[in-house]
């Protein structure tokens, strides 16, 4: 077990290296830079040129890369050209929002998925099951960004039950209970929109697992020993079926990252996804590279967590 984990973590190092290289080169290959947007007759092009030289944007790419990696190693992602502040501080502001959004989405996803999955697996091929699988197929087929827009329009603008943008009511005192509630209120609709859509695979996994496990010999044994139906489901089937779901927990995180890019942009929710898109379109390189790198690391970590959980659950997966 330990050997496997250590090995798995060692593999991450070259992965991260290639990732950082790819991100950096791709970012630099984009046409334009953070100063392209400053094409304005009131700003002196000579000053812009001077700034470009000062920023080192004309140096060969490998020098820039070495400088950047050197900084990243020490936890310094450089300065955001656009926000004129250190990237670490900027990301610090945003990552909190994204983190809570992800947590809320995950909780909601499992809150929806587990009861539905169990019901649908236990009573498979009944009307209830068909309703639930129907829902999950619809969720599977609906693009997240369309669904989120519809949610925003219906619950945000038509019914006005939820705020339509931002992460907190203007003028709230940070640290107070009201502030916390306002934050929660603002992330509820985006989290719900994402959870309702992304929950389908967990439902279907759970359903299939339960149906599978139901026919296993040890269930037959439990039944023949006279265990009650609820005991069979809650103790024997549920626990066994949940293991693969736990294993996919890591991949869930990867999925959340992709989703958050849409969700945050649609709901005007200032998190990492919105920051990424904005800094790409405005060519704020240091922010682009830092956010993509963090997203990349989160994905790799997600995969790692999944692998480790899987290997705990299923010894066959461990590499000899």
């Amino acid at each position, binding site marked *: 077990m330990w050997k496997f984990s250590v090995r798995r973590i060692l*593999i991450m190092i070259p*992965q991260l290296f290639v*990732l950082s290289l790819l991100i950096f080169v*791709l970012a630099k290959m*984009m*046409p*334009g*830079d953070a*100063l*392209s*947007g*400053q*094409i*304005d*007759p*009131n*700003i*002196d*092009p*000579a*000053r*812009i040129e001077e*700034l470009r030289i000062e920023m080192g944007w004309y140096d060969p790419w490998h020098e820039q890369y070495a400088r950047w990696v050197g900084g990243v190693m020490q936890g310094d992602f450089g*300065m955001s050209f*656009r*926000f*004129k*502040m*250190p990237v670490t501080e900027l990301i610090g*502001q945003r990552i909190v929002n994204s983190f809570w959004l992800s947590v809320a989405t995950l909780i909601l996803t499992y809150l929806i998925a587990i009861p539905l999955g169990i019901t649908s697996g236990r009573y498979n091929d009944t009307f209830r099951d068909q309703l639930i699988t129907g829902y999950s197929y619809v969720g599977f087929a609906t693009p997240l960004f369309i669904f989120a*827009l519809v949610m*925003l*329009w219906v619950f945000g*603008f038509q019914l006005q039950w939820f705020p*339509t*943008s*931002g*992460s*907190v009511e*203007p*003028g*709230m*005192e940070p640290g107070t209970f009201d502030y916390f509630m306002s934050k929660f209120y603002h992330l509820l609709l985006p989290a719900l929109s994402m959870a309702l859509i992304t929950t389908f695979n967990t439902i279907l996994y759970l359903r299939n697992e339960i149906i599978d496990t139901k026919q296993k010999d040890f269930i037959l044994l439990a039944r023949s020993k006279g265990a009650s139906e609820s005991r069979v489901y809650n103790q024997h089937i549920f626990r066994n079926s949940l293991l693969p779901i736990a294993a996919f927990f890591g991949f869930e995180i*990867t999925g959340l*990252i*992709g989703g958050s*890019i*849409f969700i945050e*942009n649609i709901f*005007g929710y*200032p998190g990492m996804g*919105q920051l*990424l898109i*904005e800094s*790409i*379109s*405005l*060519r704020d390189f240091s922010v682009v590279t830092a956010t993509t790198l963090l997203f990349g690391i989160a*994905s790799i970590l997600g*995969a790692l967590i999944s692998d480790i959980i899987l290997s705990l659950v299923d010894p066959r997966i461990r590499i000899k």
Partner: protein
Amino acid sequence: MSKSLKWLFALMLAMLLVLAACGNNTAGDDDQKKDDPKTETEDPKDDEKEDEEEPVEDDGLYSIDDFATSKTNEGEAIEGGSLTFGLVSDTVFEGTLNYNFYSGAPDAEVIAWFDESMLYTDGNFTFTNEGPAEFTTEPYETDEYPNGVTFTFKIKDNVNWHDGEPVKAEDWAFSFEVIGHPDYTGVRYGPDFSNIVGMEEYNAGEADTISGIEIVDEKTLKITYKESQPSLLTGGVWSYAMPKHIFKDIPVAEMQESDAVRKNPIGMGPFKVKSITPGESVVYEKFADYWRGEPNLDEVVLKVVSPSTVVQALQTGEVDMVDSFPVDQFVDNADMSNVEWLGITDLAYTYIGFKLGHWDAEAKKVVMDPDKKMADVNLRRAMWYAVDNNAVGEKFYNGLRWQANSLIIPPFKDYHNADVEAPTYNPDEAKKLLDEAGYVDVDGDGIREDKNGEELVINFASMSGGDVAEPLAQYYIQSWAAVGLKVELIDGRLLEFNAFYDRVGQNGEDDPNIDIYQGAWSTGTDVNPYGLYGPDQMFNFPRYESEKSSELLAAGNSPEAFDVAYRQEVYKEWQELMVEDIPVFPTLYRAVLIPVNNRVLNYAIDYGSTMGRHELAVTQEEPFKHE
């Protein structure tokens, strides 16, 4: 599939999404404001009744003349009240909240509520004595600088910073010391600063002080410029002070990230910053000690509103007014019952440019090339005759953009030459010109060949963004095809903003394959077009120069040009020259529309309006909602 392969695949997918999402991009103010077309959600038009005041015509066309520039005041103002201001942007505001450091337009909107210029301007964008400071000028003549000028500024007595400190001459001088400082990190330093006596030495680190800036007494400041130019009076003097008592201990290189800029900025404006949620919103409270009098409103809340949801935000009263409204959404919302629409001509124009040369990076000037495809002025004139910009304005923009004739835009009332004889749509004239110039169809395929009888394909660069970009580019291509010219989009598609300006030559590395391009300029408040058409200007994208043009541009900003009549004459001649030489031709002027909730009083958007934000008031606690 191995883990890393899977992961790579995921990354590719993510990139794809990202690419798809970058289609809309609002970097830069010279680009037209675009909004996300896919997210437009329309309220069903349940209210068919038309308000008499709404400038609605039967043909669905609007004209800028139908819009008022100031809000009709209806009802009595209540005491105090709170107003919500929407900052329309699909990005957050950066939070560099100081005039000396900001670079994004959203930040400027945030700053404008709590700080202001020391000098106000009038309808011609010229400095007046109405603002926090008054000024006089006297000539400054030495052997080195025979055409110099000294400005003496006197700051009014009751002008105070939000912390109670009076605004002093040293605060204003401090702005110059910071911007000119070798460690300064912002974009503001430029010819307006190096024109100050002693500034270049200071900027190079050779001098500790700027010899041309003198603090006479606590409230009096003298600044001496090497060259006296009319542009000094239209924004050429840096008119923003910064509180020295707060910034003096912060090293210049660290100022823009300091809390004094980002977290608790102060200014001298009618409202002071109460709290900032980074990127999202700002709450202001009134500054009772404001020098023009106590503001009417108790509180102003500014929040970022996405262009795709701004209509709903206005209808529900979530915001009372906005800094700018995506004009292409106006037609569908002209009947919004809870707002009044104000409108004015924007300080911008769209144009078609012809590439006539290249940028010489060594000499830092443009070089014309007589062998360029577009070198024949008759070809360029024919292309101007071939397009119907009136139709473009009506069909694509419902009249909210309209045919342009001159490169000096109408808001420069004194200088815009409305009578300049610019070509208007006349395909027969275009054909005649082309025939005469030798562009004839030799091989009978309906497409004209060049003068040597060889195939002529003109490569056209145009920017993506918004619904209209593609059909508009296609319209121009068809119009030119109708007179026999083969024009193709470069690479067969529209270019994204950054790629467009890279290839048009914002770094001086022009793409030689581009023959013509469609661009837009936001002119700023200085009428002087030198920055865009001067021979040594990087932004002279057509790479055009002529002796006459350079001469006129220089004359237009010479000391003699302080005489308005003389300057008018010079710019009139220059505008005529541009219609003759056609390095570019202007296509459209555009409108700015601002919706204002009916409860808001005392608001005006005309240039040079003396109505201050301290006069803003509301007639009831809650905004009106759309019915």
